């Protein structure tokens, strides 16, 4: 799968997406056999759902709920 177009779209969208409160990551994934933009969120809220785009430059958006953010993986 050629993900270069989706990666370029992701790179262009990343600054504004990362500036949205509750967004902790942006990447490229696969959805239904085609490249998609994955947005990583700390938790899904109605406000955040409204703030996130459904697609970016024609690429579908997939939201991943991290359940509270992304943390360094050292043991406690």
């Amino acid at each position, binding site marked *: *799968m050629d993900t270069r177009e989706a990666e370029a779209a992701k790179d262009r969208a990343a600054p504004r997406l990362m500036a949205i409160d509750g967004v902790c990551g942006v*990447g490229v994934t696969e959805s239904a056999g085609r490249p998609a933009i994955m947005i990583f969120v700390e938790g899904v809220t109605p406000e955040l759902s409204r703030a996130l785009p459904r697609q970016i430059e024609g690429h579908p958006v997939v939201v991943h709920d991290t359940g509270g953010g*992304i943390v360094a993986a050292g043991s406690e």
Partner: protein
Amino acid sequence: MKPDISLRDVSGLGVSRAQLDALLSAHERVTDDLLLGGMPVAAASGVGAANVLGVGLTARQDGDGAALLILVDQLPDAVAATTPAPAGDVPVVYREVGDIVAASYRSRNRPVYCGVSIAPCGVGYSGTLGCLVESDGVEYMLSNNHVLANANTAPIGTMISQQSGQDGGACPADEIGALSAFVPLNFGGSTTVDAAIATIAREVTVSPQIQRDNSAVQRLVLPVRPPSLNLDVQKSGRTTGHTHGQVNAIGVTLSVRYGGQSSTFSNVFTTTTAGGNFGLGGDSGSLITTDPLNEPVGLLFAVDARQRFTYGHRMSDVLTELATLTGHPVTVVV
């Protein structure tokens, strides 16, 4: 929150929509009550004492459909006998992670193989020895900054023990090397990679081979491979041992929390395992490799707060940054 698992993900197990819904509800309940709530299995089942380390879905032991998978550090016989205690009427499979993993990944190993418990002397956490790298004719042990250098705070020369003090290691008896250099974590800004290297003590033998289950080891194969979507990968780590998964996102820009601080990274990839955990806390520093060939792909450094996705740096990025750090080209030792 229910896990994002579809009927297609468990299509091989003959599970109906209603059964999957019941499993996902049980997953949510057990995750909230036992995993995140910190309540031991004992409190839910009324017997024994075991702490929940992970929750997922797996095949039933009788082969008939799917069951809730609960990973525990130790498994009292009575807990196994009382299934499905904590999950209502949903079948439960317990898997003892702690003691099984301890046998090869958390214990003192000599020679030292990669994929096992390490930490600086004097700290209360554990991480994983990823692999060996070579720079200007010297071999170093590779892991994360937040493992070997305690997130920028350990002085260069800090001794490293195998196993970690948390896992029973003691200094100086279990020292295997010393912190040599780390890529600084830029809190409040962006960091290239969470990586650090340590020299190997003269009297210690560290093998470049990766520890696998049942005392097996696996040799690394070059070249370094870039992560691509759906690439089958594996890793060995201190907490979850040998696990298998797939790359499910690439080119990720993300913010990672280190206690009360955070830093932003780019060009990260994620891995996931259907119905389980590719990595957990304590697996930081694990080398992610192709499965089954075992070519280096990346360096594990972060997980979801709810531990579904695992995050890794591309190995090529790690080697480039280490070359800048040491002033010489850096390669993976095989």
